[in-house]
């Protein structure tokens, strides 16, 4: 759409800027402040330069948490994006069942995150949970509070349960927006289903898939509540992801300096990767 140049636009966005600045700029400055200072309590601070950053970037605890985080996000994206796409392709596009499907699928998205954790906790309990009991009945020893592999399996399954619907809904929205004429043309050319998918549906889905991958990347990289409720980061440290590690350092041990430095590094990683991905996707579009 052509837009008119109008500096009065600033007046319209002023309330938004004021509110978000209050919520984002002040806390962010606090974090920056802590990250370059040392505190011995009683609100006495000393300048410490980049020491905390050096400490964080070389600490093996941070490296391990980061590695676990990257692994988790990669697994979750590799499952949820293709699965969500496949389900959206198989769904009916019209008729009375569409609303029913969409409403049922959206349900997990509206459950408070620690209820999701509690729900899977109840589901996976080895003695009385449906999942735990079923797996143990198959002859596989399964106890997610003791075995790291079982804990990972449960968390990944929980995340797939929780968020695949988001991908489905996005892809579905993209699919229904493709005009019928495209499919008619494909039928005239006797295109095979694969060709229809590859040359009609996939290109049309590019925009929604970008959003889906971006949202899933950001949110899985920030995962906290569900995992804390389910495993508390354990067994051992095997499911301690970045947010969990950060909250442990900041609110648990009250190590303000390292926690603040870690916050900044963490935020910058997300920002950088999101920006990179977004520019790559939109640049291809412009070509």
């Amino acid at each position, binding site marked *: 759409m052509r837009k008119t140049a109008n500096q009065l636009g600033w007046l319209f966005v002023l309330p938004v800027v004021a509110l978000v600045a209050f919520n*984002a700029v002040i806390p962010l400055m606090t974090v920056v402040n802590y990250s370059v200072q040392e505190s011995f309590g009683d609100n006495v601070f000393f300048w410490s330069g980049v020491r905390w950053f050096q400490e964080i970037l070389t600490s093996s605890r941070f490296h391990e948490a980061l590695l676990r985080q990257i692994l988790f996000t990669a697994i979750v994206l590799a499952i949820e994006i293709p699965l969500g796409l496949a389900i959206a392709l198989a769904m009916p596009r019209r008729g009375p069942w569409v609303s029913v499907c969409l409403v*049922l699928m959206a349900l997990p998205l509206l459950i408070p995150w620690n209820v999701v954790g509690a729900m899977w906790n109840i589901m996976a309990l080895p003695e009385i949970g449906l999942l735990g009991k079923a797996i143990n009945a198959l002859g596989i020893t399964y106890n997610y509070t003791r075995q790291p592999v079982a804990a990972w399996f449960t968390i990944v399954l929980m995340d797939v349960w929780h968020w695949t619907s988001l991908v489905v809904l*996005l892809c579905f929205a993209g699919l229904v927006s493709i005009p019928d004429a495209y499919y008619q043309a494909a039928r005239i050319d006797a295109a095979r289903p694969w060709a229809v998918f590859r040359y009609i549906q996939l290109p049309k889905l590019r925009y929604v898939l970008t959003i889906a991958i971006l949202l899933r990347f*950001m949110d899985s990289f920030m995962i906290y509540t569900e995992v804390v409720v389910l495993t508390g980061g354990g067994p051992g440290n095997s499911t301690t992801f970045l947010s969990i590690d950060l909250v442990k350092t900041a609110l648990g041990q009250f190590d303000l300096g390292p926690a603040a430095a870690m916050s900044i590094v963490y935020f910058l990683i997300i920002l950088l990767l999101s920006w990179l991905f977004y520019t790559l996707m939109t640049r291809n579009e412009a070509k």
Partner: protein
Amino acid sequence: MRARYLVPTIYIIFLLLPIYWLLNMSFKTTNEILGGFTLWPHSFTLENYRTIFTDPTWYNGYIASIEYVVINTILSVAVALPAAYAFSRYRFLGDKHLFFWLLTNRMAPPAVFALPFYQLYSAVGLFDTPWAVALAHTLFNIPLAVWILEGFMSGVPKELDETAYVDGYSFWHFFIRIFMPTIAAGIGVACFFCFMFSWVELLLAKTLTSVAAKPIAALMTKTASTSGYQLGLLAAAGSLTLIPGAVVIYFVRNYIAKGFALGRV
């Protein structure tokens, strides 16, 4: 029924299983839960729900959650409306940078903000009120609302605005009487998303409250960890948190797919 519908059907069954299990647990007595594995409640009881509805610490948690979610939704959408209009209609100094800056706040991990928010809201005297949580949640809800509304508004041709001005409408008269009804679906979807993200977020909600404004879902895990393992009660409280979500989905069911694509498909 064609074979390909099998995939969505199996998926929906997979989605409903944990929900069924939660409901199942909520209708069981503690004895039955600890006694062994049963697929449905053999001694059906409403005792768990009765406890929640008669104990003020429980139902107040419910009220507190609804309070901050509603305040947040109204606030976010109200300030996002004019901003989204400006982004969709006007070019002004720094508009693109501003838009991107807003979106970066959606990318900020809440864990980063937990401690500074605690200090900030204690300093301004809002700690442990619904307002603290409502304001904190605008951090990610305003960018989202602006994004969604901008998408829907850009779908409305600019001729509508121009015709209205030619007909002698003042800006606000046009905006409230003509423009807002035109994008009613978009406003509904934006409200839905603000409601959703405020309702499900708990890290900040938990950090910013202690007693008076504790959200129901945070209360739940606290009870479970302090007073032994009351699984039935926990399940009942969890089941009750499903209701508001189910109600709001029902209202936006026809726009839900378009809404998740942020109004841009």
